[in-house]
């Protein structure tokens, strides 16, 4: 053990043993699960020899071979169906979409064949499968390649829907998804792949798994609750810093992590503490996750009673994503949008 490590061991900082990018965390999760359970398969376009279109699956084919890591043709509806069929028959596929935009080609298989089969078969046939890939706004790729599917999939019973924010989320939630006996939608972000986070030794352990259906208080605070998830969390954490440093506003940030099941208990508890709530998401506003949170706030008398102001939403703009850079910049929420909304709700603008 080096002197540096000894020093780290002697302080509280030793919890943060490493930095890990979201990309590395996802890769580590799949690597560990492919090794742990030979019924786990990784299937998708360019996941093998190409090392993954975004290098998330780098070296996995070299380590686990043709049997477990399968390059598919460009045929989303078909390979999603093949993966689901394999899951019917005892395998546990991780089905990668190069981006979740292409999962729309396969959405019938995901909803009708994966999500509903356990119910239709009265519990006879479960479907342990993960559908994952980068999702949501991506700079410069315009409308068809820049869309957030969180609300689409969270709408459907039978699916579990996870959306990680940082490296800890990415690793722990993906491993949970692979070990889950149900279809899980796992929504990543290309923008977040290279972002590095400090993680504890616990996160680095092959046994690290996060629970599905539990939100995380990413930052505790007293003045207002911000409910967010996925890449929008990055904006929210920046905004929280600005609010604290420049405006002395101490927000509590709830990172939902799991959109279905949705951990409203954690959200409710936080709102009862702060008395104020906004949601922040990059999705379109109509029928979004924020809409769902707002509805639940009103349907829960205790929460509604605790709210000193109406809930407000910060969302993506209600348009397809434009290509032009200044237009694109206006289509997704930024730090100022969040800080402005927080100040408005608290009457401090």
């Amino acid at each position, binding site marked *: 053990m080096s002197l540096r490590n000894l020093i780290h061991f002697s302080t509280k900082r030793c919890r943060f043993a490493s930095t890990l990018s979201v990309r590395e965390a996802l890769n580590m999760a799949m690597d560990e699960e492919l090794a742990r359970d030979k019924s786990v398969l990784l299937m998708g376009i360019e996941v093998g020899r190409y090392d993954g279109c975004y290098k998330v699956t780098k070296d996995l084919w070299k380590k686990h071979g043709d049997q477990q890591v399968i390059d598919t043709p460009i045929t989303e*509806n078909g390979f999603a*169906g093949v993966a689901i069929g394999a*899951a019917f*028959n005892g395998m546990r596929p991780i089905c990668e979409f190069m981006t979740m935009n292409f999962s729309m080609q396969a959405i019938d*298989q995901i909803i009708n064949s994966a999500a509903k089969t*356990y119910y239709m078969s009265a*519990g006879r046939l479960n479907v342990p499968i993960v559908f994952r890939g980068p999702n949501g706004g991506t700079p410069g790729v315009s409308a068809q390649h820049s869309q957030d599917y969180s609300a689409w999939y969270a709408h459907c019973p039978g699916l579990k829907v996870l959306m990680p924010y940082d490296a800890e989320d990415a690793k722990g939630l993906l491993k949970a998804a692979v070990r889950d006996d149900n279809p899980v939608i796992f929504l990543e972000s290309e923008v977040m792949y290279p972002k590095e986070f400090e993680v504890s030794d616990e996160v680095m352990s092959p046994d690290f798994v996060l629970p599905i259906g539990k939100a995380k208080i990413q930052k505790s605070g007293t003045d207002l609750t911000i409910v967010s998830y996925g890449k929008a969390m990055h904006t929210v954490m920046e905004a929280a810093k600005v609010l604290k440093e420049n405006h002395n506003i101490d927000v509590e940030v709830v990172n939902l992590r799991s959109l279905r099941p949705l951990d409203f208990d954690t959200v409710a508890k936080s709102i009862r503490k702060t008395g104020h709530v906004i949601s922040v998401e990059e999705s379109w506003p109509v029928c979004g996750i924020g809409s769902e949170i707002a509805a639940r706030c009103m349907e829960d008398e205790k929460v509604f009673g605790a709210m000193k102001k109406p809930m407000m939403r910060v969302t993506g703009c209600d348009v397809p994503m434009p290509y032009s850079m200044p237009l694109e910049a206006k289509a997704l929420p930024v730090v100022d949008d969040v800080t402005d909304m927080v100040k408005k709700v608290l009457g401090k603008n």
Partner: protein
Amino acid sequence: MSIFGALKISLVERIWANMALFAKQLQTITAGGLRSQQVRMASNEVSFHTKPYKLHKLDNGPNTSVTLNRDDALSYYRQMQVIRRMESAAGNLYKEKKIRGFCHLYSGQEACAVGMKAAMVQGDAVITAYRCHGWTYLLGSTVTQVLAELTGRMAGNVHGKGGSMHMYTDSFYGGNGIVGAQQPLGAGVALAMKYREQKNVCVTLYGDGAANQGQLFEATNMAKLWDLPVLFVCENNGFGMGTPVERSSASVEYYTRGDYVPGIWVDGMDVLAVREATRWAKEYCDSGKGPLMLEMATYRYHGHSMSDPGTSYRTRDEIQEVRKTRDPITGFKDRIITASLATEEELKAIDKEVRKEVDEALKIATTDGVLPPEALYCDIYHNTPAQPVRGALIEDTIVQPYKTSADLLKAIGRA
């Protein structure tokens, strides 16, 4: 076996083949319409000839000379009759409004399922579309479980949670309601078989309508690319809903439409031809050569579903003509009686048993209870702690009282 023994057998086969040819020339077609010609073997086996198969990208194919023993004859007859009777009963239940929603009947197509099942072994699997009642029965469900599922009762295959299009057994992956979705699913079931190095196939069925789904192209491409042990079986009954094949398909030679996937056309009204083709196809798959595409030429007597009288796009005469000349059960019955594999009386006795079996099933299917309301909240997630499930009102939100139908049935003493 010695070389001499093998030679002797091949000589015997040739003699039988010649005799069969001779018999074919002598045969007069009876009113029931004999398709296969038969020759009595020394044992209790009889040799029959099937209609020639058509081959696509294959140098040789299934044997047109097939043998049948008495036990199998009686068993196939019985199975086909059960399906026919069961479907008639289902049709009546539908007309009495005891079956809701959709109901697609298999009458006329029985030889396809029975013939394929006869060639399957332990570990083989099947996936099909919504015309699934016959398959559910053949793969392990009782007539009661099928009919009670149609009426939505607890005794049903999935206790009334699936209905007509969603039934399952250990080797049967449904019962799929979305036309064509089962094609890649079947390839996936086969992928798991290959991964585990099983000598098994997944029989993946679709109709001539679903043959035009892009998913079939996607599935056959991957199946051939990875040599998956999957039999893509097109049950061509002549109509995709009400559209005859010529109006829906640029090529109606469905057995060739896998392109690089070799194919076989089979007389789907002849249970023995279907059995032999499936046996041959299974051997082909088992040897690791990958998928095959089979077209079973068949016919459905009823409309596409019960809401379709099935007479606006074809004539009643056409249906009657098929019933008279190509019916899979009548044809088979005539053949096995002529071949002395069974007597008319024996078959009548089977008919009587079958009628009794279906009548008893009907009784349960029309009187059994339905699942209690708590079942609404069952079977959402496997192996997951009880979840809160919202109802119509927020006050109706309930933490799953039972996670699965099995738990619920156990609790009410029905397991």
